[in-house]
């Protein structure tokens, strides 16, 4: 998939959370490098999956793009507009087009507001009066996400987790966005309900042509939902590729290790390859020099400690398949299992 005129363009995106300490005068003594130089694009109508283990900066990335957090460095360009440091008023024009779906359906809906008010709130904030009135629009949206429009006057506590997440989706759809940042939208749900919600999002993506930045730690869900996938490790993207390239031909050792950890119904006759990583993820306060994965990589050399591998296309990869590694895995077809 070639990228022509991306909807969202992120370059060098960085977020460092300062650590303040010291006595008697508090000062910045360090920084948690949650996100450290991300480059990626999301095309119109495309779904980019962002995967990685806990604490690698996925959610921070989502919050930076929706500008819930202020980036430390880098650029976020949405449809040609630089929104990196835009103020609330400057963002007002872009806000309707970038929406977010949250992880926890139990805390993402205000318990004191009816479903109708929650879903209508974005219209209220932007002063939009659709034809037929806001209530009708809300009822339509509820129907779109598979809820009974009669639930208009009910309160969040009367719904289950899956239903609440649908309400969250309806709220995100209210302003007809072009990009939805979905921050682990299904990880808090039961597996059976996960599938329902993912399928709903997929239908919406196809029917309404909404681009998604789909943040998840579940590789199977991302594979099902996203056309392109980026793998993050300790605040950096280590590999980004089309779905089939990444899942079938991972070039970064971390991607391979991650994929091998996906639980599957195994065929005992042909035990699959399993890579066990040793050690813990290093602290993002003091990340390793060079390649950040080197402390846990079985291929690490001195070069990995001194040189930071650039995120580039490695020989043998398809277009748009980038990886940041000095010693990439050989193509899957020649790997001896």
């Amino acid at each position, binding site marked *: 998939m070639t990228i022509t005129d991306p909807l969202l363009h992120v370059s060098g995106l960085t977020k460092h959370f300062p650590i303040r300490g010291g006595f008697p005068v508090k000062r910045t003594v360090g920084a948690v490098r949650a996100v450290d130089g991300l480059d990626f694009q999301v095309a119109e109508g495309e779904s980019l999956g962002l995967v990685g283990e806990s604490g690698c900066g996925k959610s921070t990335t989502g*919050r930076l793009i*929706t500008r*819930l957090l202020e980036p430390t460095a880098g650029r976020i360009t949405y449809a040609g507009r630089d929104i990196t440091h835009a103020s*609330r008023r400057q*963002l*007002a024009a872009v*806000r*309707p087009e*970038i*929406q*977010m779906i*949250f*992880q*926890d359906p139990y*805390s*993402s*809906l*205000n*318990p*004191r*507001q*009816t*479903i109708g008010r*929650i879903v209508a*709130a*974005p219209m209220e*904030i*932007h002063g939009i009066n659709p034809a037929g009135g806001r209530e009708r629009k809300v009822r339509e949206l509820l129907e779109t996400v598979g809820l*009974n429009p*009669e*639930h208009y*006057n*009910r*309160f969040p*506590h*009367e*719904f*289950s987790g*899956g*239903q609440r997440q649908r309400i*969250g989706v309806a*709220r995100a759809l209210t*302003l007809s966005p072009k990009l939805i940042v979905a921050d682990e939208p299904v990880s808090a749900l*039961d597996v*059976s*309900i996960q599938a*329902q919600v993912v399928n709903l999002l997929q239908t919406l993506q196809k029917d309404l042509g909404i681009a998604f930045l789909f943040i998840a730690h579940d590789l199977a869900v991302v594979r099902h939902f996203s056309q392109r996938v980026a793998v993050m490790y300790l605040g950096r993207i280590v590999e980004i590729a089309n779905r089939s390239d990444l899942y079938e031909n991972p070039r970064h050792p971390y991607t391979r290790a991650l994929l091998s950890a996906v639980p599957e119904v195994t065929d005992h006759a042909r035990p699959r390859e399993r890579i066990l990583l040793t050690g813990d993820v290093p602290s993002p306060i003091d990340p390793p020099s060079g390649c950040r994965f080197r402390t846990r990589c079985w291929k690490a050399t001195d070069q990995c400690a001194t040189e930071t591998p650039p995120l580039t296309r490695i020989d043998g990869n398809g277009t748009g398949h980038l990886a940041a590694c000095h010693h990439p895995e050989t193509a899957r077809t020649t790997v001896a299992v």
Partner: protein
Amino acid sequence: MTSPMPSAAPFQVAADPGAVPPAPTAPSQGGAGRSPGRLAWLRFRRDRTGVLSAWVVLFFFVAGLAAPLIAKLYGKDPYTTYGQNQSGLLNDFGFPIKPNGGISGDFWFGIEPQLGRDVFTLLLYGIRNSLLIATVTTLLVTLLGVAVGITAGYLGGRIDNLVGRIIDILLAFPSTLFFIAFWPVMISIFVSPEDNTPTWLIVVSLISVMTAFGWAPMARLLRGEVLALREREFVEAAKVTGASPARIIFKELLPNLWTPILIQGTLALPMYVTTEAALAFLGVGLQDPTPDWGVMIQRGSQVYQNDITYMLFPGLTMVIFVIAFNLLGDSVRDALDPKIRR
């Protein structure tokens, strides 16, 4: 959702995905849902202690508010010295002649020793004045505490730090001692010692001093609540849609703060009633010709060896009122916050 049967509770947590959880007591399927406030009201109505204390508290407020009306129907006022004007009520030592403090068909709660005022109207007006001061103080304290608490919690950073230190200092301050020591000084700034201090000035100064030292607990509570709510995802959702800080505070945060505000408020009011009475007893605040609960108890303590009845009425009514209001506060808390159990 509350269910009449406790055994049904676990099923409501994990309702089945496709359908609405069946509401056993809601016949209007698909109609208006029951708001958290409405559910709290339903819980409160089932709490007998709460309902009873609510009636008692209401009775006191009605009695206080309607004091002039009741006094008019009763035909007496709290200022006339009936015992000195009419003979046959007080003996030579100034104590009621009739037993039990002079209780009779004319004087329902008896007459005051020495001055001979009517205890019933005195008590009514005393309740009226005490409740007025306590209610206004509670409202002001709540307003100030909520404003400061939300500001500190929402803005965070330096402002939060500064407000936090001020709250710490206020809470560590011995406020009762301060009232006793500085209240006369404060009054002397406005009124020369020769003049009589006007009652309105006493009331205003009392209210403002109690407010100045009283807002800290409310502010601290609200600050904590806002800090927790601010991180909730529905606040972020409002931000993502471009909501202004004012909208977030008034539409998203405040509706979730009514519970702690109401609980703290209902527990604060009886406290101010007793504080005001204690101050009046110690000679700070309202002075004798003005009817007041605390002033009455002070008078009662001077004469109780000869006329216990006179102390009994203000004392007992205050105990009943404070207990009822505290029980009401507990019930309000239980109704609004069913997870917190004593």
